[in-house]
């Protein structure tokens, strides 16, 4: 039995195809990104080794820092929006009729491509004919901002479709976690005279803290990688007001053919993502995991 189940040849045969694929297509490219970052390279011609110059340039590049700042702003918005999702899930999970159906309706935008979402929301924000301005007009707002054309509001305008896209996802996760809380705990609190609000705030939310922490990591790390939606909706504009790290990297490489510098930015994106992941994990890790 043990001999068959530890047959080296079979193990290799079963794992190597997948391992080779991720090795060649995920791990080797990651290393190469750091290496290309040391080069002056237009993507086609020969590479010229220039040491850390690209990385030093990046650290002094205001455009890079602005894009990083926008990424972090989106990350903070996303983390804050988790509160709304949590409240909705608490309501949904409190034995309300139709919760299942509502939860599924909330999930629908999550299934669509960011490109389709971006195109749809470009239309929603259209100054002449979009639904947003015509609804605002109905409520008597005569001079709404040019949503995607105003550097001051563009990031907020981009955040709304993000909120829209991921609402169902986070609600689903919280809802599933809340459904796992044993009824007896909630019943006991009720008998002790706790209000619905107290039960939600003092009992249910702390009990799903582990899940909440995971979603914080997901929301923040996910935001650092935003690309498709912004690339399609604004291309980083107007005048860089919605540029994020990934879109800046993409532009450097595939629009201005500065592949060496683009790689350096790509490598910094990787480092920042990993540092932030570890940092938030540490920050949100607690030794007293709730048991029930």
């Amino acid at each position, binding site marked *: 039995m*043990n001999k068959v189940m530890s047959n080296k040849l079979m193990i290799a045969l079963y794992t190597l195809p997948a391992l080779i694929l991720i090795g060649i297509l995920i791990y080797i490219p990651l290393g190469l990104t750091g290496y290309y970052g040391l080069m002056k390279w237009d*993507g086609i011609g020969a590479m010229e080794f220039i040491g850390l110059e690209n990385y030093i340039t990046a650290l002094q590049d205001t455009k890079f820092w602005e894009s990083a700042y926008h990424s972090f702003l989106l990350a903070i918005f996303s983390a804050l929006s988790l509160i709304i999702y949590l409240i909705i899930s608490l309501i949904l999970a409190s034995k309300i009729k139709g919760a299942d159906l509502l939860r599924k309706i909330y999930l629908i935008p999550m299934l669509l491509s*960011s490109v389709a979402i971006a195109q749809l929301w470009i239309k929603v924000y259209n100054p002449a004919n979009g639904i947003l301005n015509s609804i605002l007009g109905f409520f008597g707002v005569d001079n709404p901002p040019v949503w995607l054309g105003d550097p001051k509001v563009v990031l907020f305008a981009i955040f709304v479709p993000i909120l829209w896209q991921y609402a169902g996802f986070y609600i689903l996760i919280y809802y599933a976690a809340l459904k796992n809380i044993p009824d007896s705990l909630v019943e006991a609190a009720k008998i002790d005279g706790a209000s619905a609000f107290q039960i939600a705030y003092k009992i249910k939310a702390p009990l799903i803290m582990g899940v909440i922490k995971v979603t914080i990591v997901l929301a923040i790390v996910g935001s650092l990688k935003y690309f498709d939606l912004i690339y399609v909706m604004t291309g980083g504009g107007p005048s860089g007001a919605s540029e994020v790290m990934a879109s800046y990297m993409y532009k450097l490489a595939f629009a201005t053919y500065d592949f060496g510098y683009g790689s350096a930015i790509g490598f910094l994106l990787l480092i920042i993502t990993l540092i932030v992941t570890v940092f938030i994990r540490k920050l949100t890790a607690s030794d007293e995991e709730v048991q029930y």
Partner: protein
Amino acid sequence: MNKLGYSILYVCLGLVAVFQIFPLIWLVIFSLKDSREIFASPPLSLPEELKWENYVKVWQGDIAVYFFNSVWYTLVAIILTVILASMATFAITRMKWKLSSFVLGLFMVGLMIPIHSSLIPLFKMFLTVDLIDNPLSIIITYTAYNLPITMMILLGFYYTLPKEIEEAAIIDGCSINRLFFRIILPMTVPVMSTTVIINMIYNWNEFVFVNTFISSDKYKTLTVGIQNFIGQYMTDWGAIGATLVISILPILIAFLFFSNKIVEGISASAVKG
């Protein structure tokens, strides 16, 4: 809680539902109007008559090509991903070897990688081996990048399979291949279908890889194709609407039939990060 409280709750939940679904309904509405009507009547009005011509018109353009490319890239990548992931997960969870947890770690770290950080080297690699503007580059990248999440979803199920099955099979003289393909794999159908759906959503909606590696129209997928297409039809909102509806329809139909599987897959994939 009293009646008033409940009504307020339902109104709030209902408003959220409207916010989630309304932009899509509006999309369907303007996809059935012509340009004159879209620009002359209020955005929220229903179409005077249903202009199905919009759909006919865009389907006769390149959309049909993009659509079928999306279909076959998605399908081939799903099959490859699910088979390779199942085999690797089987070897990691059911077979005995020293490096199994290390190898599992290699796959799971893949969940944290921002794809943009590997885009330039991938581009260069595909350029070197002449796979730029070749569907193969898309299919293998989809497969590689979806392996970690697919294995993540499969893992839990494989861990719970009873040991006795393997023992009995091997005592009967069953080979590993036979055990895996004839006995274990069929048992994992429920969780496999969840991974199929999740892969379908990811592949169907993928943008960056196709946008970077594919340049000819004949190889583009819907997500990238609609970008060009919409460029051509700047002011023809009816055509744009029809294009978008066509691009999201397959996923919506899948959701209608398999919403439970989708919910399962999405919750499972949430643990990543």
